[in-house]
């Protein structure tokens, strides 16, 4: 099995490597949003008499959004961009002929290869941003070690959510609209738009129930040492429960999708 993944890695890495110049451009999509919001909150904090909003000053906001940006790049799955068109134009059937699960091998490794390469390009950009915004980075070695599994699990969650959404392409041609809807909800409740602390209490409640904060806000706050041990433990349990639930959902929809796909082709 490991050999299979190794093979897929070689293919997908080579494929992504061709587009390395484009990756630098795509980075712009990721970078602009957090910069805009870190500026907005800095302006608000600097305008307040205490220089703070909800206990955060401009440098804290810079640290939050720049850390979040790195976490976002590491955990957000982009599988829909390849997978949706493969399902729509039917080329997925070539992959279905192989004796391995196409989503859990090829799509998964492709996502990973994309992330690995993008991370390489991202490091100098991130360093430049840190120099520009002078964030109060409160990382420690232990916060890194504690956050690492949360980032990996966060990516798995995001991968399952995105691919399960994309599988709807077997039923509808409007899968991108559906993805937009999920994306909008996620953006609001994941901590990507604002630190969850800034949300009104009832919205914080919703954010706790939804899975999205687990792959954004959670790893970010561990990295910044802003979480109590009890909260960290609770969120880790939540991550595992969500991954199991999402995986079961993914399997169910995948089986149905295949049945439906062969029905169309027959």
């Amino acid at each position, binding site marked *: 099995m490991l050999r299979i993944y190794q093979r897929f890695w070689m293919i997908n890495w080579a494929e992504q490597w061709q587009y390395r110049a*484009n990756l630098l*451009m*795509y980075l*712009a*999509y990721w*970078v*602009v*949003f957090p*910069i*805009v919001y870190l*500026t*907005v909150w800095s*302006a*608000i904090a*600097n*305008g*307040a008499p205490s220089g703070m*909003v*909800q206990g955060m000053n401009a440098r804290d906001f810079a640290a939050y959004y720049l850390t979040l940006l790195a976490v976002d790049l590491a955990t957000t799955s982009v599988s829909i961009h390849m997978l949706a068109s493969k399902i729509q134009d039917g080329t997925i059937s070539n992959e279905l002929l192989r004796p391995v699960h196409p989503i859990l091998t090829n799509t998964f490794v492709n996502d990973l290869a994309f992330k690995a390469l993008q991370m390489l390009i991202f490091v100098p950009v991130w360093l430049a941003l840190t120099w*520009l*915004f002078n964030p109060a980075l409160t990382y420690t070695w232990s916060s890194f070690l504690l956050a690492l599994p949360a980032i990996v699990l966060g990516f798995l969650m995001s991968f399952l959510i995105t691919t399960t959404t994309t599988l709807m392409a077997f039923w509808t041609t*409007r899968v991108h*609209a559906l993805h*937009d*809807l999920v994306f*909008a909800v996620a*953006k*609001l409740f994941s901590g990507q*738009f*604002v630190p969850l602390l*800034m*949300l*009104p209490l009832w*919205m914080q409640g919703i954010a706790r129930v939804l899975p999205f904060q687990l792959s954004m806000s959670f790893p970010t706050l561990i990295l910044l040492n802003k979480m109590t041990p009890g909260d960290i433990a609770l969120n880790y349990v939540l991550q595992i429960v969500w991954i199991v639930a999402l995986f079961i959902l993914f399997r169910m929809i995948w089986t149905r999708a295949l049945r439906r796909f062969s029905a169309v082709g027959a």
Partner: protein
Amino acid sequence: MKHHFDVLAAYIRQNMKETLAYRVDTLVNLGIMLMWQAWDFAGLAIVFSNTESIGGWRIGDMIVMIGIFRLVNMLMFSLVWPSTEAFNRGIREGTLDYTLLLPIDSQFAVTFQKIVVWRAVDLLLAVILIAVGLFYSGAMPVLSNTLAFVLLMLSGGVVLYSVWVMLIALTFWFTKFDNNVTLMQALTDTGRYPATIYPVWLRLLVTFVIPIAVATTVPLQALRGELEWWQFAAALAAGFIAFAVSRTVWRIGVKKYSGASA
């Protein structure tokens, strides 16, 4: 000139037919657009539940800002993105040659062939938002400021159009440059907030390189009567200059272009 208007009318009719042929898709897209509008409101409500002003801009001002941003959004989604997609496909597949052969100005044909007609809804939304925002902030602008606002909105639109034309014209030199509008697409979102709160380097970027702020913050400042007369004149002149430069770049580009496959 009249000829151009006739052709434009024909393009709009043609695109209208396409919209009507895919009615459900249009409705779904309209729904998505309204959803993001609701998202914007939720975002504003959240931000302003923590503060009264963003660097001196209050909630009424921000509603006006969102209204203005809708106009920029309309330009992008009705014209710029779809036409760029068609243009890039034309270069890749060689069909651009047919467009260039048409007995009409090639820049006109490339930039107005694809118009997503239903996005005109944005115009209505923008007017409502601007009116509501102004009412909310309690600062009704005087007539001269309103006139300056409308003029600068138009000139800002022309500036954005011209920058876009130059960006896609670059493809004539680097045929593989199909990321031509990525940066513009990414930076469009900076138009949601007044550029005056951005750090200097970002303000310079969105004013002079990808001048989103020229079509958002600057007209808003005119509406609030914050512009000196020379700033107004400069912003207005920017529209004419940008258009002239883009025409030249386009002409040289087309002359240089010899097909992607040849």
